[in-house]
């Protein structure tokens, strides 16, 4: 019924079986997949995002995301070239998946205080960052439906490493 794996289950009889519901409160920062799985309910606009950014992010990433003392977050919305200085790599020119942005911020930001933003706040600052990077026009709020559909300019550059392709012929990039 459940395939090969289950035939082997219980072989050592070690570990505690738990239900998916029991996992939920443990899964404090769910992984977001490129198709949007893992994104929570809620949403946020560019405008709200600007406020969140100024209050919670600007001290580390600069008033406009230009990046001091920590990473630059804003770049032109043209993908990088072999001439781009690597310190200039940022969301607009290098990031390949919009969902990564939500996942990154919920998982890790504000640095040292991750988990302190609500889902709406994360969506909002994601919207603001995508807008600042020229990736979206800011017309629609970001949420579990809209975010995965955003097209990142650098996605066009992305290919699977050829050695990895040899080793895992089934593997396709999302």
């Amino acid at each position: 019924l459940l395939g090969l794996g289950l035939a082997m289950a219980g072989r050592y009889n070690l570990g505690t079986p738990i239900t998916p519901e029991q996992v939920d409160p443990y899964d404090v920062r769910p992984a977001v997949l490129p198709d949007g799985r893992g994104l929570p309910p809620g949403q946020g606009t560019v405008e709200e995002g600007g406020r969140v950014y100024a209050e919670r992010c600007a001290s580390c990433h600069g008033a406009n995301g230009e990046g001091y003392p920590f990473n630059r977050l804003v770049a032109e919305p043209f993908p990088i070239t072999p001439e781009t200085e690597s310190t200039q790599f940022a969301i607009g020119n290098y990031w390949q998946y919009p969902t990564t942005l939500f996942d990154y911020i919920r998982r890790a930001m504000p640095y040292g205080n991750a988990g302190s933003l609500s889902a709406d706040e994360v969506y909002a600052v994601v919207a603001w960052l995508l807008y600042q990077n020229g990736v979206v026009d800011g017309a629609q709020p970001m949420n579990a439906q809209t975010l995965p559909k955003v097209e990142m300019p650098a996605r066009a550059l992305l290919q699977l490493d050829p050695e990895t392709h040899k080793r895992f012929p089934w593997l396709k990039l999302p």
Partner: protein
Amino acid sequence: RFFKLLGGGILLSPLLRARAQQGLWDAKTLEPLKALGTPLSEYGERASFEAEVVRYISPNLRTRTSGADFAPLEKLNGVITPNGLHFERHHGGVPQVDPQAYRLVIHGMVGQPLMFTLEDLKRFPSTTRTYFIECAGNGQNGYRNPPDPNLTATRSRGLASNVSWTGVPLALLLKEAGIKPEARWLIPEGMDAVAYTRSLPLDKAMEDVLVAYAQNGEALRPEQGYPVRLVVPGWEGSIQVKWLRRILVTDLPTMSKDETSEYTDVMADGKVFAFTWIMDPESIITYPSGLQQIKPGFHEIRGLAWSGYGRITKVQISFDEGKTWREAALEAPVERRAFVRFKLPWNWDGKEVVLWSRAWDEAGHTQPTRGEFFQKWGRNNRYHYNAIQAWRIAADGRVSNGDRPLSGLAQGPSGGCGGEVFDV
């Protein structure tokens, strides 16, 4: 006082005394014989005289909770990296995890989600194997142009270490939970402040990935993931998730924070490569190496080599920038995906010379020259640098970076903070 050192009753002639002080040895040489040493101790520490053998932390870092430090390769012997000197790389500092409170959850596309305590994990069949772990950013200083004249072996290739790991094969845990047929990927997650995640194909996990809890015999060190981490043999260090708390079994990679915004490679033709997992062959001469100074006469050229593709089959040394090569000896046991120590006896005649080393692995791969490397990889890439490292020995015996400048434009260190901590 010196007389007394020479001990009891035997009176020293002034002549002998003079000789003893004429540079053969001094009073300190005999001092330990004078008095009882320190008593038995429950846990030993290294000699105070070794205090300068430390990991290199770049002075340019803007934070020490997201960054890396380097194993002091040229100060180490053999192939085992001592636990206190294993390179570090983390993105939210080193969490201090209580092993009693520790849990590992496997969930997602499994027949039965499971939770394991540390004790549970230790009860499974165990495996101990020696594997290198190397940061994908190792060699980053090689992207500089012109090359850094003050480079050391540590700063050239010290984001790699080699340890005897003990753990349970991840395959056993996955089988225990029962994998659903549609599953293709694992999303392991750490319990550091940034809940670090990566995407790992199920196939690799079923082959040789370890859920490790011990390092060179003792519990993992906090910096290497205490109490539990992944060891993913031969693959880039950043996929070997530390402080492992959870594995989501699923059908897509997550394209996680660091695997896309950071460990994604820029190629010379403008493409960007995802999932460059296997670490290419690598070698570094640790003696003689940058900032050391040698005298004419006999020397054993020593170095380390490794490859993510498997066993090192050969290491060659060139004294003429690649025109001719001599084969170094590899010290047994030569294990797969582990450091191997290579050696070549050599008499230095006191003339300026440049040393190169290059490793070959059982898959037939070898290291490129700098020129060859940059035909493939972007000059603005930050990872997977594995070009041959040259050391120049000047006539006065001083050793310095022997890499030649690249043609084309001058280029600052790749990545921020002096190129020694990636992108912050």
